[in-house]
C-alpha cells in the first residue's frame, strides 16, 4: 500500500518528498502514521524499534530530513533517541505520545525535540512538519552568519600564551575567516528564498560520513591536541570551514561528556541553549569536611548554572557528613558557565563525592565486567585529554549503547569522570596539570584541588589538577590508594577561584544532592536553570546542593556503581 515516491525531490514541489523516518512500537500507529504521511506526499520509512532506527540513520546512504518518534518504547527511551539523532545526525525530531503532561512535553523540548505531538495525531498536524526542517536550515544559516569572529579572536588573544600555540591564530587566518563569513553571507542572501535544500552550499550538513571523517581526524590528531583548524586540515573536505568544525567540535565534546555521564551514572545537565554573557567571579569551593573518615557517604552534587553571576558556596560538608546512607553515589557536576565578551562560555565543574561505606556492598560494574573509568571519554579512543588541559587514561567502555544527555544546541561542556569497578583504577587516572592554556575557550577556572580518600583512583600526578595563570596552588591534594573494591569512596574537595573580567557578581550556585530513588523526580527551575532532583528515601539533611540526573538514565544499579568525578572544563560557547 502506498505509492512509491520518487527519491529525488523536485525543488518546486517542496515539501513533497520530504524524507521522514517514523519510530513507534505500536504497530497500529505505525501503519496509520505511515498512511497519513504518504498522503501528504512524504517519503516514509517505518521502524518499530529505536535501535533499528538509529541503525538505519547511521548506515543508510539515503538521508532523512526529519524523524518522528514515540516517547515510550520498549528498547530505548524516546528522549535518548532524540538526543542521539540530534547530535549524530543533526536532524529535527518530533516526539509523539498519548501522554500530554506538561512535564513530559517539557522534557521533550529540553532534549531538543522540535515539536511534541499528542496522540491521536491528526493528518493536518503531520502536513506541517516540513516547517521544522525548513526552520532548522534557516537557523543554521543564520548561525553561520552570526558568528562573531572578532570576539573569538579577542578571546584567543587574551588567553594565555599556550592558546596561541595550539590554535595558531594569526592574522592571515583571521582575515580568511572573515572572508569566508562574507562569502557565506552573500550566498545566504541569494538563496534565501529558494528551496532550502539548495542552500546547503552555504552551510555544511553534518552527514554521517562527514561526522565519521571528523571523528577520524580527531582520533588522528589526538584529543589533547585537537583544535578546529587541525581537524579541518586533517579532514580535507572542500568547502568545510573552520567555524563549521569548531561548532561541531563543541557539540561533539558535549556528546562525549554526556556519554561519559551516562556511563558513569553521571547526571546530565539540561541547560538551555541561550547562554549568558556573564563572567564568573568569586570563589567557589566545597570543602570536604575532614571528619569524613570511614563512613563515607556519597552524595553527588550536580548543579547546573546557567547564568551565573555568583558563586555561592554550597553544600556544607558538615551537612553532607550527616547523611547516613548507603546512598549510591550520586553525581556531582557543578557547572558554571561564564561568558566573556559575550562569546565565551566557561564551564566549570566541581564536585564532591563521598561514598557510602561500601564494604558490605557488592558493586557491580555498570555495563559489563570491565571497569570503566572515563574522563571525557570518546568512544573511539583509549586516551584522551580534556580540553587541552588534562590527559587521562581510561578504559573506554565501548560496547554499551552510548547514551547521553544532550543539550539542544547549546554547548556547555560537562566533563565527568566515572569510575566503576576499580580493577584498573590504577591505570585509569593519569592527570596532568591543567595548562593555563585552555583552548580558545574561556579561561575562567583557576584552581582545583582534588582530594581523594579511600580512593581507588590513583592520581599519579599530584600536582595541580587545574591551574591557571595566577591561580593559587592546589591545596590538600593527595593520593590515597586503597585496594580495589567495588566502588570507590571518594572525597573530592574542590576549591576554585576564578577570575573574571567583568564586575558582575556571580549568581548563586545551586547544588542539590541527589539521591538514588528514581521515582521521584522534581523539576526545578532556578533562575533559568533547569535542575532535576532525584530524591531518595534517605533524608537529606539540609543539603543545599542539588544533584540532578536524568531520571530515565539512572537505575539503582547504575548509581551504586559509579562515582563521578567532575573535572573542570571550560568551554567556549559561540
Amino acid at each position, binding site marked *: *500500500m*502506498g*505509492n512509491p515516491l520518487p527519491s529525488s525531490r523536485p525543488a518546486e514541489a517542496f515539501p513533497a518528498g520530504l524524507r521522514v523516518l517514523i519510530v513507534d512500537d*505500536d504497530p*497500529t500507529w505505525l*501503519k*496509520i502514521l505511515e*498512511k497519513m504521511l504518504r498522503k501528504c506526499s512524504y517519503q516514509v520509512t517505518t521502524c518499530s524499534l529505536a535501535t533499528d532506527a538509529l541503525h538505519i540513520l547511521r548506515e543508510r546512504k539515503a538521508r532523512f530530513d526529519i524523524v518522528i518518534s514515540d516517547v515510550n518504547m520498549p528498547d530505548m527511551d524516546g528522549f535518548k533517541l532524540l538526543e542521539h539523532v540530534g547530535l549524530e545526525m543533526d536532524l529535527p525530531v518530533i516526539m509523539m505520545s*498519548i501522554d500530554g503532561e506538561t512535564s513530559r512535553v517539557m522534557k521533550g523540548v529540553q532534549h531538543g525535540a522540535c515539536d511534541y505531538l499528542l*496522540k491521536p495525531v491528526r493528518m493536518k498536524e503531520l502536513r506541517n512538519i516540513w516547517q521544522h526542517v525548513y526552520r532548522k536550515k534557516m537557523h543554521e544559516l543564520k548561525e553561520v552568519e552570526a558568528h562573531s569572529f572578532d570576539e573569538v579572536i579577542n578571546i584567543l588573544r587574551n588567553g594565555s600564551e599556550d592558546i596561541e600555540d595550539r590554535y595558531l591564530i594569526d592574522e592571515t587566518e583571521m582575515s580568511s575567516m572573515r572572508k569566508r563569513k562574507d562569502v557565506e553571507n552573500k550566498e545566504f542572501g541569494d538563496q534565501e528564498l529558494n528551496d532550502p535544500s539548495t542552500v546547503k552550499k552555504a552551510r555544511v550538513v553534518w552527514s554521517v560520513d562527514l561526522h565519521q571523517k571528523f571523528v577520524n581526524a580527531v582520533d588522528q590528531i589526538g584529543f589533547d591536541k585537537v583544535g578546529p583548524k587541525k581537524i579541518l586540515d586533517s579532514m580535507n573536505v572542500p568547502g568545510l570551514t573552520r567555524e563549521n568544525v569548531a561548532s561541531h567540535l563543541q557539540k561533539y565534546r558535549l556528546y562525549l561528556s554526556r556519554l561519559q555521564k551516562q556511563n558513569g551514572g553521571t547526571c546530565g545537565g539540561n541547560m538551555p541553549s541561550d547562554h549568558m554573557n556573564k563572567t564568573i567571579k568569586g570563589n567557589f569551593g566545597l570543602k570536604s569536611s575532614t571528619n569524613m573518615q570511614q563512613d563515607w557517604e556519597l552524595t553527588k552534587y550536580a548543579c547546573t548554572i546557567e547564568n551565573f553571576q555568583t558563586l555561592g558556596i554550597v553544600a556544607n560538608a558538615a551537612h553532607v557528613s550527616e547523611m547516613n546512607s548507603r546512598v549510591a553515589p550520586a553525581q556531582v557536576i557543578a557547572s558554571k558557565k561564564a561568558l566573556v565578551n559575550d562569546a565565551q562560555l566557561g564551564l566549570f565543574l566541581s564536585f564532591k563525592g563521598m561514598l557510602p561505606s561500601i564494604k558490605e556492598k557488592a558493586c557491580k560494574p555498570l555495563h559489563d565486567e570491565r571497569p570503566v573509568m572515563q574522563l571525557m571519554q570518546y568512544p573511539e579512543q583509549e586516551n584522551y585529554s580534556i580540553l587541552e588541559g588534562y590527559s587521562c587514561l581510561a578504559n573506554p567502555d565501548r560496547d554499551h549503547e552510548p547514551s547521553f544527555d544532550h543539550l539542544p544546541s547549546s554547548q556547555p561542556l560537562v566533563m565527568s569522570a566515572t569510575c566503576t569497578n576499580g580493577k584498573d583504577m590504577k591505570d585509569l587516572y593519569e592527570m596532568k596539570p591543567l595548562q593555563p592554556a585552555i583552548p580558545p575557550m574561556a579561561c575562567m577556572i583557576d584552581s582545583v584541588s582534588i582530594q581523594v580518600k579511600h580512593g581507588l583512583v590513583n592520581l599519579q600526578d599530584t600536582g595541580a589538577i587545574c591551574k591557571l595563570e595566577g591561580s593559587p596552588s592546589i591545596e590538600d591534594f593527595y593520593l590515597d590508594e586503597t585496594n580495589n573494591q567495588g566502588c570507590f569512596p571518594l572525597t573530592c574537595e574542590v576549591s576554585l577561584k576564578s577570575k573574571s573580567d567583568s564586575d558582575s557578581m556571580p549568581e548563586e550556585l545551586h547544588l542539590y544532592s541527589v539521591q538514588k530513588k528514581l521515582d521521584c523526580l522534581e523539576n526545578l527551575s532556578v533562575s533559568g536553570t533547569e535542575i532535576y532532583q532525584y530524591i531518595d528515601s534517605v533524608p537529606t539533611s539540609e543539603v543545599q546542593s542539588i544533584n540532578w540526573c536524568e531520571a530515565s538514565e539512572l537505575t539503582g544499579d547504575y548509581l551504586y556503581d559509579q562515582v563521578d568525578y567532575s573535572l573542570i572544563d571550560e568551554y567556549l560557547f559561540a
Partner: protein
Amino acid sequence: MDNASGLQRQLACMKKKLFDQGFLDEQFYQLEELQDESSPNFVEEVVTLFFRDSSRLMANIDQALEQCPPDFHRLDKFLHRLKGSASSIGAGKMKNECAGFREFCSEENLEGCFSSLNPRSTQLLPLLFVHASTLVQMPEIVSEGEEGAHHLEAEVGELLPVAEASRPRRQSNSLW
C-alpha cells in the same frame, strides 16, 4: 443482496449508536478518510492490527492482575500501551477506561482495577463493529448468500444487548 443491504442498514445504525455513546470517536472517521484506492482495505488492516496488539495486551493485563502481589508498575505500562492503541482506532471509551484503570493502578487499588474491567466486553464493541462492517463490504461475504448474511446478522445482533449489559469480568475471560 437484500440481506446484505439490510445488514448494512443495521450496521449503519449500530455505528451511529457507537459514536453517540462514545465508543468510537473522531479518530475512526480519520481512518475511514485515509482509505482510498491505493489502500482499499486500510480500515480493516488497521483494525486487524489493533485486535492482535490489544488482545495480547489484555492478556498481559489479566496476567498481571492475577499476580500476587500485583505488579502495578507493569500493569501501568501495559495500560499505557493499550490506551495508545485504543486512541489509534478511535476507541474512545476504551481509552477513558484505560485512564481510569491507570489511576487505580497508581493508587494501587486492586479492587478498583478489577472493577475497571467490568465493561470490558463493551470495549470490544467498536472493534466487533468495525470488523463486522468491513466484512460486509467484502464481496465474498455478500455473495455467500443467506447463510453468510445470517451469520453476520447474528453477530451484529449480539452486539446490541452486549452494549447495554455489563457483565462481571470473570465471566468474560475470553476477550476475543
